[in-house]
């Protein structure tokens, strides 16, 4: 295996914050002596990325995602820790390093607002010194994959969000950077626009072996694009591994929904089937959740159909949104100082917020 494209070790970023006491007296007190505090936004984060890898960097609001990205792109200097991206220390060699990266902040645009999109591309071409031939060829590819050709003559302010994002993505790849940072690239986009963006990213990653770090709240982005996720909360890495592994570890549940021709006598709330209990969803419809570590869904289904006249049956897994939101909740509960520690039984597969499990 070659050198990692990105190596992050024990990265820490703390911010100085002024604490303000509430009310008028607090405001007055603050005039004379402001109480200072520190906020740890990123807390000993470590990970490595191999060249060509596409990693999802996820976490709830305020988890430290953007702060990490800002340090990796050289905008922010860490409090401590080491980062090496493509052999650069980002914040120390900002301008030289900037030639090798592409950055998309979904909430902002790098295009000039009031002039035709193509003028921004011309400017970027000069900034990165892209040759005329390369420019023509790449613009053709962008048009093929993102259909931006007809947008080029329009000012950015007239574009829809999806159109603007397609242009921004193309702009970030005009110089074919080996490393690409995407911060919420699908925010606010409709289904079609999202699909376009994802297909484009997949293609760029495949064709140019671009290493991609993607932060997003949309876990479908991750499911479709990333083999691997790094999940952080309160500045700490809670999980680094595959999405499937994350699900298996935290919510290893199979959900079996079945319909009976008519409600059993008494229309009971619970149906006991062997060692399991199915809950009633509506008259005649039941749901049985099974811990996959204890039994396979096949065994459970056999047991259900053996004793009941089942009409229809469906098996599903908790979707990734649910898994992740459970992790956030559990982590929040753990961090409350006076809260009792969640018991093993109540929270299967709970991740200690100190150690990182890899899957």
């Amino acid at each position, binding site marked *: 295996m070659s050198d990692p494209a990105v190596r992050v070790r024990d990265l820490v970023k703390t911010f100085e914050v002024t604490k303000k006491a509430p009310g008028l007296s607090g405001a007055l007190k603050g005039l004379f002596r402001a109480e200072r505090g520190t906020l740890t936004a990123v807390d000993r984060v470590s990970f490595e990325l191999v060249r060509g890898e596409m990693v999802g960097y996820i976490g709830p609001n305020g988890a430290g995602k953007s702060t990490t990205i800002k340090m990796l792109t050289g905008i922010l200097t860490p409090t401590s820790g080491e980062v090496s991206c493509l052999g650069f220390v980002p914040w120390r060699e900002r301008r030289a390093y900037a030639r090798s990266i592409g950055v998309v902040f979904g909430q902002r645009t790098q295009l000039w607002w009031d002039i035709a999109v193509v003028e921004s591309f011309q400017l970027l071409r000069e*900034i990165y010194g892209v040759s005329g031939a390369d420019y023509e060829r790449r613009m053709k590819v962008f048009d093929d994959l993102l259909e931006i050709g007809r947008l080029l003559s329009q000012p950015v302010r007239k574009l829809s969000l999806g159109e603007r994002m397609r242009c921004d993505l193309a702009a970030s790849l005009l110089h074919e950077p080996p490393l690409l940072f995407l911060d919420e690239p699908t925010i606010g986009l409709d289904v079609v626009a999202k699909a376009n963006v994802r297909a484009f990213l997949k293609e760029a990653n495949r064709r140019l072996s671009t290493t991609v770090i993607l932060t997003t709240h949309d876990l479908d982005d991750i499911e479709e694009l990333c083999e691997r996720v790094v999940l952080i909360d309160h500045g700490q890495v809670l999980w680094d591994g595959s999405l499937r592994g994350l699900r298996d570890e935290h919510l290893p549940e199979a959900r079996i929904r079945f319909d009976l021709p008519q409600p059993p006598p008494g229309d009971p709330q619970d149906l006991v089937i062997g060692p399991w209990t199915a809950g009633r969803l509506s008259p005649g419809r039941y749901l049985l959740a099974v811990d996959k570590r204890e039994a396979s869904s096949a065994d459970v289904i056999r047991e259900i159909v053996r004793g009941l006249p089942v009409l229809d049956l469906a098996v599903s897994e908790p979707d990734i949104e649910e898994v992740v939101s459970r992790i956030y909740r559990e982590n929040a509960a753990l961090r409350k100082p006076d809260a009792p520690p969640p018991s093993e039984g109540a929270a299967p597969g709970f991740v200690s917020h100190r150690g990182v499990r890899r899957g």
Partner: protein
Amino acid sequence: MTALAAAARPYLAFARTSFLNILAYRARYFVGVLTYFFNATVWYYIWRALFHEKGEGATLGGFTFPQMLTYVATGWALRSFYFNEVDRDIASQVREGRLAMTLVKPVDVQAMTLSQALGESAFRLVLFTLPIGLLLVVVYPVLPPASPAALALYLLSGLLSALLVGAINFCVGLVAIRTTSILGVLRAKYLVLEVLSGLLVPVAFFPEPVRKVLVWLPFLHMNDTPGRIWLGLATGADAARALGLQAAWVVALLLLGRLLWKATARRIEVQGG
């Protein structure tokens, strides 16, 4: 040389893009032509009244009335060329965190900002300064430049004024970020610059002690220096010395801007803007 040309290309592109960007707002500029004309007109009548009081052929502060009118006209025409809002721009970019988009690009922020200011000035020259100049010359008895050399030196001095204003505004913007009211600082700046540059009142009218201080400050090089060159009040060695000082101030303020930017960049890097 080729390396230098390659390094300059992105900044030429910034100037060009800035030019195009303003072109998108050209309607706003047609009104601006009239604003400048009115400003010059107001001063024309004020000075005419003052000179009228003194009688035919009188001088004020060493200026005859036609000279005074010309000083005012060349001053306002020049202001229409060198004016920019680099200060407000850089300050709001830092405040709103928009500068992040620039910081991830391989560009020098000061050079980029000044290129954009010059691109704006190029636009202003065509759509602003030339029509205003023409209008003033047609309507009022503005004196022609004292000599062909005076015209050439005036143009050079005007270009230096634009650089000077760009350099000053970059510094002012970075200082304004540190205060709670960016707009307040900028408003104060306009007042100070318009008075001290000689735009409102020729520097020759200031009391001796004030003038003694002013020659050691950069501001009079914005208007007074080019104005005096046009009128032939500074020629030969005097003109050369004035231009040299003007250029020295440009360099000094660019260096000051770099220092301020370093400090600002460090704050952004540590506090995130």
